[in-house]
């Protein structure tokens, strides 16, 4: 039994937290300690128990056993509102804003100041202004309708809700997942400011770079247990990933020796409707070419045009020495090209179908003759990829919507592998997935291009430069629809790439 005195140096202590759902043990025995004014990162694969732990902290679930101390006092919230009243506020990934109410009404929602039966508008305004003073954002007027504001501003309302109640610990659950780059930087500055005022923050993220930027310490969860708490500054990414997945990951970006084979793809002055403009690129067997560039520079449009999803306006594409000018996606698949969409949920996967259905969708021809297919063979083939790529699921017949983002993405990649394509077009293959799944996908890409029997070729788009430099042999930069030549990674730096991407320089 813990006692209130002697622990007041900590803002929060969670000890021996255990939570089961029926036969499933969501949390085995978790300890977590957070200091005042500390940003404490919580990382782990999907299903490791991060969300459950935070739901217990914010009062949405009750722990089976274990104790919590908040500022040295026994803390046992009855529900999220009670937790907020006691000083713990949660900012969910899916924002909980009432779009038809005003900013100030949203901020005081659930704890409206009243005078008799009426809302005390003056106090409401005062409280809202106080909370908003932290943000210094031009769009954030107390009387604005919340639904008219951008996602990033709505997130501020949500933060303001907790600040208005005087919360001393804020939990951020992947707060950057729906934000644009400039809003992310703004959020980071806000977190720095909040930290400086002594507010503690628990920060859940898939992105190690965010953790590095913000947090002083991090706790790693795996299979419902806290496996380690470390200082962020002295811990390497490989170490973090190893702890997360429970196996030794020596190199986040594995790179076997690569051998360039024959030319498989020749793109000649390719132009789409608006983008791309005049793009030329050669791709050889056994290599990975990275396409860098800002969001909106035309990278995705380039791959879509190449694949026949968007019309080709000018130029031609030669695949295995066969030239085409107006291809359809079906022809591209036949030529041995496969594409992985950047929008996993909207475009990449048929979410209410099974894993097997999704993996085999483009290659159903191979599962039986005369238009008849065998579900048993489809499951069998899919099971092979489930094992090979480490897709965490119950069976190949399970609906793919039940999987985590990372595992869904592995299945989306498996479709290309099952189709046995020679050329893989990967658009942001690791966006929004946890670092362990990323590591798997990097491994898979390395295997694809170095497979002794069948080395293939990859074009990959990414907004994360360390990733591109880690996995690619050559990098080309897209800027306003035009693509530079592809340069070996050893010959350029991230600064060179950024200079071209932002238009400060024309070529690498």
């Amino acid at each position, binding site marked *: 039994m813990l006692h209130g005195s002697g622990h007041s140096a900590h803002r929060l202590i969670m000890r021996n937290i255990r939570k089961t759902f029926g036969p499933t043990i969501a949390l085995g025995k978790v300890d977590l300690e957070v200091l005042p004014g500390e940003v404490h990162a919580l990382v782990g694969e999907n299903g490791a128990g991060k969300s459950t732990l935070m739901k217990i902290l914010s009062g949405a679930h009750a722990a089976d056993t274990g104790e919590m101390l908040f500022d040295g006092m026994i803390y046992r919230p009855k529900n999220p509102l009670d937790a907020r009243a006691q000083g713990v506020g949660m900012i969910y990934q899916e924002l909980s804003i009432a779009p038809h109410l005003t900013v100030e009404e949203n901020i005081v929602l659930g704890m409206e100041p009243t005078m008799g039966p009426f809302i005390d508008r003056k106090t409401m305004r005062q409280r809202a202004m106080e909370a908003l003073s932290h943000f210094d954002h031009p769009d954030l007027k107390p009387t604005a309708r919340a639904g008219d504001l951008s996602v990033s501003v709505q997130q501020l309302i949500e933060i303001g809700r907790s600040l208005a109640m005087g919360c001393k610990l804020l939990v951020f659950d992947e707060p950057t997942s729906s934000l644009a780059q400039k809003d992310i930087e703004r959020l980071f500055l806000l977190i720095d400011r909040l930290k400086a005022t002594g507010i503690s923050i628990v920060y859940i993220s898939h992105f190690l770079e965010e953790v590095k930027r913000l947090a002083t310490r991090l706790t790693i969860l795996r299979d419902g247990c806290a496996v380690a708490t470390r200082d962020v500054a002295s811990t390497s990414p490989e170490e973090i990933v190893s702890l997360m997945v429970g196996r030794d990951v020596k190199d986040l970006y594995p790179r076997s020796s690569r051998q360039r084979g024959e030319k498989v793809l020749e793109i000649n002055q390719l132009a789409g409707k608006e983008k791309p403009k005049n793009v030329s690129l050669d791709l050889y067997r056994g290599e990975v070419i990275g396409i860098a560039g800002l969001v909106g520079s035309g990278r995705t449009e380039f791959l879509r045009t190449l694949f026949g*999803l968007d019309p080709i306006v000018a130029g031609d594409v030669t695949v295995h020495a066969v030239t085409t000018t107006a291809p*359809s*996606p*079906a*022809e*591209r*698949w*036949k030529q041995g090209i496969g*594409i992985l*969409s950047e*929008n996993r949920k*909207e*475009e*990449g*996967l*048929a*979410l*209410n*179908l099974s894993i097997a*259905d*999704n993996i085999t*969708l*483009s290659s*159903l*021809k191979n*599962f*039986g003759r005369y*238009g*008849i*297919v*065998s*579900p048993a063979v489809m499951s069998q083939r899919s099971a092979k990829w489930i094992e090979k790529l480490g897709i965490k699921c*119950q*069976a190949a*017949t*399970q*609906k793919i919507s*039940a999987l985590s983002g990372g595992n869904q993405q592995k299945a989306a990649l498996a*479709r290309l592998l099952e189709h046995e394509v020679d050329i893989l077009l990967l658009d942001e293959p690791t966006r929004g997935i946890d670092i362990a799944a990323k590591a798997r996908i990097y491994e898979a890409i390395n295997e694809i291009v170095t497979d002794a029997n069948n080395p293939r070729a990859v074009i990959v788009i990414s907004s994360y430069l360390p990733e591109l430099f880690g996995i690619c042999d050559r990098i080309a930069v897209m800027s306003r629809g035009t693509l530079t030549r592809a340069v070996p990674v050893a010959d350029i730096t991230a600064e060179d790439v950024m200079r071209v991407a932002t238009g400060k320089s024309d070529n690498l």
Partner: protein
Amino acid sequence: MSKATHLRSMLAMLGPFLALLVVYVIFGSLNSRFFTTDVALNILTQTVIVATAAIGMTLIIISGGIDLSVGSMIALSCVFCAWLTTKGMDPLMIFAATIAFGAFCGACNGSLTVKLKLLPFIVTLGTMQIFRGAAKVATNGTPINLPTTVSAWKPWMGGVGLPYGVWMMLALVLLFSLMLRFTRFGRHIFAVGSNELTATLCGLPVARIKILVYTIGGAMAGLAAIMNMAKSSQGDPTTATGMELDVIAAVVIGGASLSGGEGSVLGALVGALLMTTIRNGCGMNGIPTPWTEVITGAIIVIAVIIDRLRHRKA
């Protein structure tokens, strides 16, 4: 697959069956005459028309579409079929021509939806009026009566054990169930309904699949029209008014999702049987027709609620 997941998917499959069984037993316990072969056969034969149309509708709904014109399509095909019959054509030719006519109507729906990129709800709302109006124009609003030599013939009289029409319905359900599960076309229908963009990305001929699905839906409506004409011995342009709602309800009770990607032909059959059973049961127990409508409506809503709960858990 874990036991719990397995159990749940079994329950999802069995849900409509259980509902049918429960309703059947309730009516039987209220009135012992309900448990006779005659009544059971009656329910089966009365379901044939709706169930046949519901098979086509299941494909359309799985592919993410809807066809509100199916009732009118049945009426128009019915009138066409009766007109051919009065010309003294060979019965087989009449059947083939009527099914082809229905398929043509369905292909019109499909082509308008796909080629002009219109919402199927709106397109078929329009063709619902067009087909119905055309049927009335063609007949001047009065039913075409069949020659007396023909009117004695009914497809569900006779047959081994069960009437011919019922055998046909069961055979079609089996055929289309197998088609949906074991053919490339079947899997493609699910993929298009689940996520059209993914289907496009994977190189599926999305437009062709959709038009084909509406065409099959139309062919099924043509077949239902033949049944309908044989039942009433006439080509009535006002027949099957509002039947599209029965057909859609049968598909939805059978576990289909109106947003596409889910559904089963067997479920649609059970859904159709459930509605006929309620109507018959209410009739035999002296429950007035308005109440029958209330009960049927309630079953539809309950089916949707159960479906919702199932999805939340899964």
